[in-house]
């Protein structure tokens, strides 16, 4: 499948990434190369084959519905680029 510049920019937008003008061409070329390589999968017959989500036979992992309080708020906020009154600071959204 041929990827257009517009498509690449749309994808970058979905991924919340800006691409510089000089990046657009090289990313376009790389993406195209990799997708061309991925075309080997078209030759594989997958009719009547189920998808594999995980690689082990684990079905579900339940644990007890217990509240465990993590009290070290300071540790959690330590890495915040900006914080105020024990809260993460973000620009105004409304």
């Amino acid at each position, binding site marked *: 499948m041929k*990827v257009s510049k517009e498509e690449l920019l749309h994808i970058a937008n979905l*991924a919340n*990434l800006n691409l510089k003008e000089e990046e657009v061409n090289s990313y376009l070329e790389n993406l195209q190369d990799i997708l061309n*390589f991925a075309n080997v999968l078209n030759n594989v017959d997958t009719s009547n084959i189920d998808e594999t989500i*995980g690689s082990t036979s684990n079905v579900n992992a339940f644990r007890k519905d217990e509240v465990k309080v993590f009290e070290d708020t300071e540790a959690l906020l330590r890495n915040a680029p*900006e914080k105020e009154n024990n809260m*993460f600071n973000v*620009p105004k959204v409304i």
Partner: protein
Amino acid sequence: MELYDLTVHELIEKLEKKEISVLDITKSYISRIDNKEKDINAFVTITDKEALEKANELIDGKASSKCYGIPIGIKDNICTNGTKTTCSSKMLENFVSPYDATVVEKINNENMICLGKMNMDEFAMGASTEYSAFKKTKNPWDIERVPGGSSGGSAAAVAANMVPWALGSDTGGSIRQPASFCGVVGLKPTYGLVSRYGLVAFASSLDQIGPITKDVEDSALLLNVLTGHDEKDSTSVNVEKKNYLEHLKDGVEGLKIGVPKEFFGEGINEEISKSVKDAIDKYKELGATVEECSLDIADQALATYYIIACAEASSNLGRFDGIRYGYRTNNFTNLNELFRNSRSEAFGDEVKRRIILGTYVLSSGYYDAYYKKAQKVRTIIKNKFNELFSKYDVLITPTAPTVAYKIGEKCNNPLEMYLADLCTVSLNIAGLPGISIPCGVNSNNMPIGMQIIGKQFDEETLLKTAYAYEQKTKFRETYKPEL
């Protein structure tokens, strides 16, 4: 002979005989790091002061565990409370985890000593450690060459005797391929055997933590520490905890080895092919049955891998938004710009490339053609392995198609870099365990790795098979990097 030359099981023997103290060991490794780190660049963070403090605390204590006082290096995508965990990315340059990964808790419970955090490709995406945002790690066998990746810092440090062993993580070969490039032993356990809690996620259905060690016995020893069911990782499998040293020395008499012929042909360097075939012949002498078989999946596996791994990465790396932790741009006027500019300024080129590929294959219109198709081919690959494992106990292939290449050689061609994972990715896709052990050197004196593949949760057979060859050939005693 310096202490840093020894394997961990040799160190433990000396500790038990009271010939040395835990402080002697830590001091020996720190002096080695002081001498060699400037040439190798294996560490993102060196915790020598903390290590010495802990060794001093432990010196008078009673050895309460097998690995009491043994130092270790930890790949920088495994969370350590109080020490930075950067993933070799500008995004997490100053990130200090508020908790320990489960494997780190286990290491601390053993009273092991962390010497530092090891360099890697940014977010574990790469095969040469050249994609680290901070430094390029050199291969101790030839410092003009890459150590492999993404656990390149871990493998190079073990090969250069700067740590006695290290933790790596393996999503498509990131433990085994650098182990092969650096002439050391790298084990990727079965998916679910070792808890991923606290491992910064790249591709959650493929990632696994495992040991990089100087020899096979150390690999078994460290695996003993790492395994165990963990409630905090929902994909951790509740299997009985084994002692991997118990059957290590049982030998390979009667073992059935399958040799998939496709892994010795096109795309694989001839010297490597020959060296691994010679190694397989040794198994015949050791009493194993060797049979050629067919596993024609390499290209499909690689394509499947890059689609699934990038899809999962694009989702996993969505959390980096400049709000709760990680890099935040100064250049924004609203929330959306804050997200976009933080991500665009802090992620490296390869990480962005993979996020874009992953977003593409998951996006409306392409999901069925790429992602869903890959998930189906994943089933076929698993089935093919299952068929082979109904006949054979283990499979043997080369670990990588080439030996370590020159720094810069493959940086400009991402697809060519991806081919470095040709022999390793299929194990992650099928959740199988694999070990890479050195089986010789090529004409440039660069180590060659052999990959042994086992059944799910049959690390015992894997380690036993690796051990038998290692004891017969004594790679470590014959070949050494000139450092």
